[in-house]
């Protein structure tokens, strides 16, 4: 009896095994998409997927074929377009390894929210890719350029954005989670980094692009796209982007320069920076205080300064403070006057500190934001001078 039961169990389990493998996809059945570009064509979406040719990317062999290929399809919804690609592609497009999602500027001006639902709903996708806007160009163009150093262009776009956000800070890395939470937040509007192609696009699409030094075409991040809710309304320049990152406490490290009192320039490497945005309420009128504490090293000296004196250092620190304050204030002014929307999250700050007052303020927060007084206070600290103290310029007699 017991043995019969055991046999039956084994039999049933075997049955499950035999009919199993519903989900099985061998690695060579996958078209690994690393980048997705979404354009609008009429009422439809034109979706381009950059798919890796694994054999070309890894190992020593390969070289004759481009490392990636681009599949394009048009459909009423993004998912339809993606599935329509199977009429061209021999394999199913696999979305889990997307590194970058490029939205065209025209799509962004019309609104991006419909494009995002699929990306957040599809269980296959992850949220660790970056979203960027193609500046004054179609999104598909961004995935057509072949690149050097990193064979897969989308992976290169990913690491370029990450590196520039870390080292220079005019760009910002936005992934889906962050974008969505800023979209739904009442006290904040999102921004996305812009991307454009420099050089000759036509050559960029062919293998020739990576055969010459320098590459005839390349992709470059520039500026931040400002969104009102999900619609693009304008751009911030690189320096304004840096100011945005200062306010958002996103600075990992960056470089800035100050003008020396007697002409010439001195650049500072910011190695650590911390920003505190505080809100206060005076007679129901909110005001914002931004406190930035930066630690910077002297990076480059092109003027006559005696850096061995503590007074000089203090002076440089003051100069740097004022300089940073200025461009942060300028950026805030610009956003307040030109775009009239709160991309800095000041509304969130007020909501956190004054939830009761926020309930009244939130209805027309953007109007309030335009006139909100902002007080910026930056303090620099310069602990190190680099490998040398005074510049050798000091001793060079002309």
């Amino acid at each position, binding site marked *: 009896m017991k*043995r019969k039961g*055991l046999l039956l169990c084994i039999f049933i389990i075997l049955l*499950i*095994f035999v009919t*199993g*493998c519903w*989900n*099985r*996809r*061998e*690695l*060579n059945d*996958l078209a*690994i998409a*690393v980048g997705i570009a979404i354009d609008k064509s009429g009422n439809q979406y034109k979706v381009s997927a950059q798919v*890796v040719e*694994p*054999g070309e*990317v*890894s*190992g020593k062999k390969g070289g004759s074929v481009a490392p990636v290929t681009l599949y394009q399809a048009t459909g009423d919804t993004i998912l339809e377009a993606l599935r329509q690609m199977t009429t061209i592609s021999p394999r199913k497009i*696999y979305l*889990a*390894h997307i*590194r970058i999602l490029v939205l065209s500027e025209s799509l962004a001006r019309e609104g991006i929210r419909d494009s995002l639902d699929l990306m957040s709903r599809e269980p*296959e996708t*992850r949220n660790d890719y970056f979203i960027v806007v193609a500046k004054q160009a179609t999104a598909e163009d961004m995935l057509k350029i072949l690149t050097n150093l990193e064979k*897969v262009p989308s*992976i290169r776009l990913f690491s370029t954005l990450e590196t520039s956000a870390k080292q220079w800070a005019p760009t910002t890395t936005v992934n889906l989670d962050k974008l969505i939470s800023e979209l739904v937040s009442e006290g904040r509007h999102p921004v996305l980094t812009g991307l454009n192609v420099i050089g000759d696009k036509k050559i960029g699409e062919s293998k020739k692009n990576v055969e010459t030094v320098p590459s005839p075409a390349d992709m470059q991040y520039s500026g931040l796209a400002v969104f009102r809710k999900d619609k693009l309304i304008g751009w911030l320049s690189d320096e304004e982007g840096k100011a945005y990152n200062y306010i958002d406490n996103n600075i990992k490290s960056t470089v800035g320069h100050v003008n020396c009192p007697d002409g010439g320039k001195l650049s500072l490497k910011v190695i650590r920076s911390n920003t505190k945005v505080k809100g206060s309420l005076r007679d129901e009128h909110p005001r914002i205080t931004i406190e930035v504490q930066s630690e910077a090293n002297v990076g480059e000296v092109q003027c006559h300064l005696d850096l061995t004196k503590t007074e000089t250092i203090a002076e440089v620190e003051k100069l740097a403070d004022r300089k940073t304050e200025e461009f942060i204030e300028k950026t805030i002014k610009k956003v307040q006057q030109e775009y009239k929307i709160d991309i800095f999250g000041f509304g969130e700050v007020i909501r956190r500190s004054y939830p009761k007052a926020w309930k009244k303020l939130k209805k027309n927060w953007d109007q309030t934001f335009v006139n909100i007084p902002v007080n910026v206070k930056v303090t620099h600290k310069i602990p190190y001078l680099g490998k040398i103290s005074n510049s050798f310029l000091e001793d060079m007699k002309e």
Partner: protein
Amino acid sequence: MFKNPSLGNSDSSKEPEQTKVPLTINLQENLQHINNSLGNSSDIVIREIQIGSERQIKAAIIFTDGLADSKSIQNFIMESLMLNIANADPNHLITSQEDIFQVLKDHFLTAGDIKDVTEWGPLLTSLLSGDAILLLEGYSKGFSIGMRGWKDRGVTETTTETVIRGPKEGFTESLRTNTALIRRKIKDPNLWLETKEIGRVTKTDVAIMYIKGIVSDDIVKEVHARLDRINIDGILESGYIEELIHDETYTPFPTIYHTERPDIIAADLLEGKVAILVDGTPMVLVVPIVLISFFQAAEDYYQRADISTLIRILRFISVFISLLGPALYIAITTFHQEMLPTQLLINLAAQREGVPFPAFIEALMMEVSFEILREASLRLPKAIAQSISIVGTLVIGSAAVEAGFISAAMVIVVAITAISSFVLPAYNMAMTIRMLRFLMMGLAASFGLYGIIIGVIAIVLHLCSLRSFGVPYMSPLAPFILEDQKDTLFRMPRWAMFSRPRMISKNNIIREQSTPPEKPQDNTGG
């Protein structure tokens, strides 16, 4: 289904008659009986002699050539009986007939182990065990004189369980040598040894060894009961016993430990376990056993605690790899590609370009061919085995990759799995892991990680339900015993291992009361 009781009774029923039959008074008749019983076997030597000079008594010495030490028989039996008696003043000794047995025993037979035999059964058994038999005319009894001395493999280094540090000697095929090896390590009067004879035809000596006072009496009783239940024609290796007394047949996991190292047995006896020694094999069984024991090598206790702990953790990791390595590879590359980092995925995909088989079939092929190689090199002479394994691993592996049958990553996975499976000190447990590996691969191929999780849960459930001689197999992990954790995943310093495993030695827990070594005073003044 597999048992046929009607078959078993037929030959066991006639044996008791043979054993109970007494000897006769007539020497010739007795010798005839021996010849008849053994079918005139040519290795039975019968030497008829006359004892004494005045009153001569007919006698016969019978022994098995090759089993008994013929030189000792000459020196201690023949010489004593034929020469010494004649030279001594025998008259007053051999006058009374009643006493002649006692007289021979007391004064002439210069051998250590002498037993009286009166029945045919014991007589034949001891004759065939290598004792010399002395029969006298006119007596219906004889002597069985311990003259065992056969060609024996000496105590040599173990081949299956080697250590870097620690004693090198291993058990031999002789039961007596083996008990001596243990006694030499434990010189306590409480080290008790009980011997049974198991096997209706082979009459194999089986010894049970334990330390009275440390061992739990229930376990000893249980061991006796289970051994007494055995009714089999022959025991040729301790594996027979193992299969007949273990708790659960339908399990891939061994519930009895075996080893050929005396130091392991000594350590186990000190923990309160029972050793079962079987004549004719160097493999000694130990009961009861827990799963963790298969992860503990003898050397763990000879190296310092930190080294041993690290090595033990390494062992757990390699068992994990050995069990789940290919399964995880299959699950991740065919179901959960999103879990791989992008660059790794691209690399793996590049390798798989053009491979015609699904990953599961690929893995199965590689695993099976590896198992074939392993088995082949195991049975071959050592010199050939090495070249076979080189051909197998290097040539076939790289050729398969070059030909595009197999992806290089799969070769790596299978190779690391294979190496890991050799890390476990216990070979039988390593086999278990190998068997389960295929099950896990199947589950992974049809259900991905979910299948693996379900498989692991099923294995853990099964492990938790096992017992070895009443001791839960997963103790001291489940049921969790805090004190015993000192020698489970970690091996604590010696002074911290103050108690015996709680589940095994129930009544005598305290093992030592050493204190941690004190730091010497620094007298250098510096």
